[in-house]
């Protein structure tokens, strides 16, 4: 179990690990909790980082040796772009998925960075399947 603000994690060498973070200081947690549970049910070990700035997200991805980064974008897409840049400076190949209130034009911008974007209404099965595929699992 992990809570919205503090990451708690139990380690297992067999399961891929996903770090999920909110880039904005917006505490709506329904979305990240639902996606977090869906990824856990799909075999991921999930670190729910909560609201975190780019530096904290980079630190968590490195510390947890994450296989996947999930970003909830509740604010401007520029913050997500800066975060992805910073993470890829350390982990150039890490797959990134994103969700939240992401306008169509912002969705296209993130997709140009190779991010898989799941706006509201996306299927949880699709999210989980994509996440597994991105981590090289069937």
């Amino acid at each position, binding site marked *: *179990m992990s*809570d919205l603000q503090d990451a708690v994690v139990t380690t297992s060498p067999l399961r891929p690990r996903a770090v999920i973070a909110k880039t904005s200081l917006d505490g709506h947690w329904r979305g990240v*909790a639902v996606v977090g549970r869906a990824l856990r049910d799909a075999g991921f070990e999930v670190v729910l980082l909560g609201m975190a700035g780019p530096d904290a997200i980079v630190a968590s991805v490195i510390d947890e040796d994450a296989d996947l980064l999930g970003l909830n974008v509740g604010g*401007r897409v520029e913050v997500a772009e800066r975060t992805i840049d910073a993470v890829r400076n350390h982990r150039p190949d890490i797959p990134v998925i994103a969700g939240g209130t992401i306008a169509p034009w912002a969705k296209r911008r993130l997709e140009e960075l190779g991010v898989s974007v799941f706006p509201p*209404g996306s299927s949880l099965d699709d999210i989980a399947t994509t996440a597994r595929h991105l981590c090289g699992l069937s």
Partner: protein
Amino acid sequence: VKPRETTRSGIPLRSIYGPEDVPAEWGEAAASRPGSRPFLRGAYPEMYRAKPWRIFQLSGYGSPEEMAARLRFLLEQGETGFIMKRDRVTNDHLYDVDHPEVVARAEDVGQTGAVLLSARDVQIAIDGVPIERSYAHPGAGVVQAAPFCLASFWIAAKRRGLDFTQLAGTGQSDFFLTYVGCPTKEQIPPQAGLRLNGDLIEFCTERMPHWVPVSIAGYNGADSGLNAVEELGALMANAIEYLDEVQRRKRIDLSVVARGIGGINLRTSMAFFEDIAKLRAARKMWHDLLTRRYGITDERALRLRIHVVTAGSAMTYQQPINNIVRGTLMGLVAALGGTQSLGISGYDEAISIPSDHAHQMSIRTQQILQHECEGLMEVADPLGGSYFVESLTSSLEDRAWEFVDEIQAEGGFVTAIDKGWLHQRAAANTDREFAEIESGEREIVGVNCFTDDSYPYEVDGFAGGGDAWEQGMARLQKLRAERHERACGDALVALERTLRGDGNMVPSMLDALDADCSIGEVGTVLREVYGDWRAPVTI
């Protein structure tokens, strides 16, 4: 179309309802008149013939100047009250714009509300806005920020030459928003929040005859996942917590307080009939709670007034123009339930904060309901006496009281929040909801049925206020350079002393705002006195 077996909160649905479905003991309430006890059928006898519901939309982004422009636009469009939504990053966290957590995501600043860092900023934000004759919500949604938000508005009004007794409006300081639906990264603990709210209630009761000090917003519980039964029950449990706190202090008359906090907020959603019944049940439950538990007899206290916001979560990202229809239906639910005030979510809700056009459409939708929907404004409680609606209202009430008992058994509303009990209830419902959408059991047009990959009406969403952080930095530097530093420091010391004692903190907060203290400085004092609370959200 597959018929549903139950309402969203689990009340069985049958194909036909008759007199046998309305409990005998419900007869008296069902036969009551609107405006009469127990107010099941409406708060006022003539309802919308005497006074249409208030058109009250959430708004705010960017700089204080941008907020003033949007407020003037909305009032010109026919809005009859105004809400000053403030920026989540700075305001809700009580951070100045140069706080490291704010700098880390500077682009987000001003996206979720206007950046108002001091009483001076509020003066700019209400420039040209007729606050002396409009009903105001100065953006005091989050508990730790509410005293700052209200005091900054009241000081700005005073600087315009208005007396506190002339001001009409509402605080909010809502526990559902703050501790359940949208917890901030740092937040004072719920017990401290209860003390601040107690102080606001006392102050407004004594000094501000036209001000609702705090407003319980079931919306924020409902849009986090609580169903209609849980929303009603939790709202009543929250009221018990406030009234018990005031009663414990023994400083002011409970019935005057009950009247002050008897303006609440509920959510309407696509749970059409259940939510109509919910508004009706809420009024009766409020009446019964106050008379039975507290022995209150003053009718003005027993008459619950309701503000409705339509479910943001019902608005879809896919085929967003469809949301105008959803907004219309959910607004109609509010009117049929007898609301006093209404905000309809923007059709671009799932995409961004509302654009000018989405805001205008929300207002036009309300105007069409008020001006064109024949019979709606003329007849109070038009569904009263329907076997189905009376049966549903009665069932909801019974189940909601059971939920109140469950919360009390957990130690009361604040304890139930503190240990994450309410969050778990909301999360369990959310999981079920998502599973039903995934399986197709719950259909949402454009999302899991009638989808259209070539939908031609793309909505871009709103992207304004891009330089709100830079502008905020400039105003903050100017404030620090121009104000009387000693007076500011003294006011903050006095505020801390009051917070550590038992006296009412509102006068000290007003002094701090009048000395042009900034939001971050007030926040530092609150954090030092009360520390931080961690949201008990788990997966």
